[in-house]
């Protein structure tokens, strides 16, 4: 899996590239728009991450040029511009996703996975994390064979956790997934919500599955960190 990162701020590109490489992606970095367009022409990338404020060639122009040559590659916009107008303009130019700085690496990583998975729906109906089992067809959840009753939203959250097992999910991502909106005012709602899910999933068990990653978010995994 090969990713092209077009970002002019070296520290940002270094940190993102390092994170992606830790997740076993191959990463090429272009620190300027024209280079990015040329690289995208030469190599068949699986994904392009594009900053909007670039020297010489503006991000949106880069986006249009890449789209003209290679219509299929998923393009994720990474930018400090967050006005609605900016977003609409770039979605119209062919962007697939939009992430505003500052962002958690975990969020970038989950979005990348989602973009790459797009179209290839090879999700099995049953997901397991240790002794916790979730059936997507019947929407039933069991732990050590014992049924756990969840509300719709709790199920949605647990399903989100389990599909991304081992990955840290930020509060912003949880809000977006469960309530379908982006708000930072709801952070404490997420905390309460996760706490309730924990009560149902982990309370009766010594072996905890849902973990807090301070300063980042929450994750589900079958081993202590």
């Amino acid at each position, binding site marked *: 899996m090969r990713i092209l990162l077009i970002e002019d701020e070296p520290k940002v590109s270094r*940190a993102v590239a390092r994170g992606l490489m830790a997740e076993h992606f191959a990463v090429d970095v272009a620190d300027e728009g024209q280079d990015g367009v040329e690289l995208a022409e030469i190599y068949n990338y699986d994904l392009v991450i594009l900053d909007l404020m670039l020297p010489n060639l503006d991000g949106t122009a880069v986006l249009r040029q890449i789209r003209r040559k290679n219509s299929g590659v998923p393009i994720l916009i990474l930018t400090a511009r967050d006005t609605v107008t900016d977003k609409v303009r770039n979605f119209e130019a062919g962007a697939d996703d939009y992430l505003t*700085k500052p962002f958690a690496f975990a969020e970038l990583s989950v979005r990348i996975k989602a973009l790459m998975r797009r179209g290839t729906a090879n999700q099995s109906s049953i997901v397991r994390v240790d002794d916790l089992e979730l059936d997507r067809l019947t929407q039933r959840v069991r732990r050590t064979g014992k049924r756990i009753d969840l509300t719709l939203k709790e199920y949605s959250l647990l399903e989100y956790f389990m599909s991304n097992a081992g990955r840290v999910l930020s509060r912003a991502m949880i809000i977006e997934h469960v309530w379908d909106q982006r*708000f930072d005012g709801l952070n404490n*709602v997420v905390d309460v*919500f996760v706490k309730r899910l924990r009560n149902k999933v982990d309370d009766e068990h010594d072996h905890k599955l849902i973990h807090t990653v301070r300063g*980042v978010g929450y994750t589900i995994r079958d081993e202590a960190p």
Partner: protein
Amino acid sequence: MINTRSLRFRLATWYAVLLAATLLLLVTSIYLGLKRYLDWNLQRTLAAQCRAIGTELIPELPTKGSQWLASETVESYDPEVNGYFIRISGVNGQILYVSGSPKDYSFDPSFVPRPPIPAGNDSLRNVKMPDGHRLIIEEMVFTNPDGNRFLVESGVSYQRVDEVLHGLLVTFATLLPIIILLALAAGFWLMRQSLRPVDEITRRARGITSTNLSDRLPLFDTGDEIERLSTSLNEMIARLDTSFSHIARFTADASHELRTPLTILQLELEGIVQHHLLPPGLVEHIESALEETHRLSRIVENLLIISRLDFNAVSIDKSPLDLGDLVASTAEPMQLLAEEKSLLLRCEIASNVYVEGDPSHLKQLILNLIDNAIKYTPSGGQVTIEVAGGDRYAILEVADTGVGISSEALPHVFERFYRADKARSRNSGGAGLGLAIVRAICGAHNGEIRVLSSEGLGSRFHVELPLIAQNK
């Protein structure tokens, strides 16, 4: 209705007052001058008559007799027809000739009293007749070579002068108000003509706000003060335009400049936390730093939201929306927070309350108000959210039974970074920007927000947003 404080009215009035004063002065001097002239003229005529009789007829008297004197006088002066009074008498009182009543019978000459013999050669006297008529009489004494002295009196009714002067006064009294009224109207019209560009400038200037600073006032190529006024106003608007676009640029630049280092900080710290070989103590420090980075990011975001709303750098995207639906969907996740604190969160929502707004901004507003209410209400309390359609405004109220706001703090709650209770708010993670954002959002939607609160009993935030006519 005429605005009596307008420049137009005041100037026209001043003109009229000054004109009236000038005219009055003129009329008075004309009146006095004319009266003087008429008096003088009359006296001159009378004196000439006396002198003619005295020098041409009296010396002939001894030879031709008083009969001749009488007929000659009538022939020369015809006093009855001309309305004159003529009397010729000896100083001893013997009357040689007296004219008859004038043909208009304005006076009876026989009633005119005899004057004392004047000391000098001539004198002028006024005689008031019993019927009220005034006569003006010139008298002269002549001495014949034989030593006899005669008194010649020539008079006329003063009525003629009175009539002329009276006529003049009547003319002035009728004309003066008309002239002044005409001058007032003309002045008013002239002022309006010359001030019309000012009205136009006023109208256009009123339409210029921070969103259309590129507009300019109309220029009148008249070379006068008004052209200067609109030119300088335009220059001022141009300067405002420049500074506003600087502020807008600053906001856009600041968002980029602040976000990039925050991104790096966050990514680097996350990178370290993921590292498994760190000593546990250090992990705690890094996590704490990471939390503060998040808080800093939130503050930066909120400040940017406020400054954008304040400076209209982003024209907010308004569309008609059902305020009740928006409140209900926003309150739903907050129910969880309320339950956690054992609060009762109640919604009383009227249907079909439509407002024009940016849904994400309005959602933020609702969320901040509810979040605030829950935060400051102790367990067992109640938070009520109400949406109602008013007369012209949609009303959103968020009321709680919480700790309330002290009267000293109340005027400041919407200020940036203001905290009513420093310790408490810091623990609950806010930066004191929530209500400032609420107010900025209200302002951007042409709405209003008020707060009522009594300490220990609770607070009530009252938001009014312009209602739109629903066509469905």
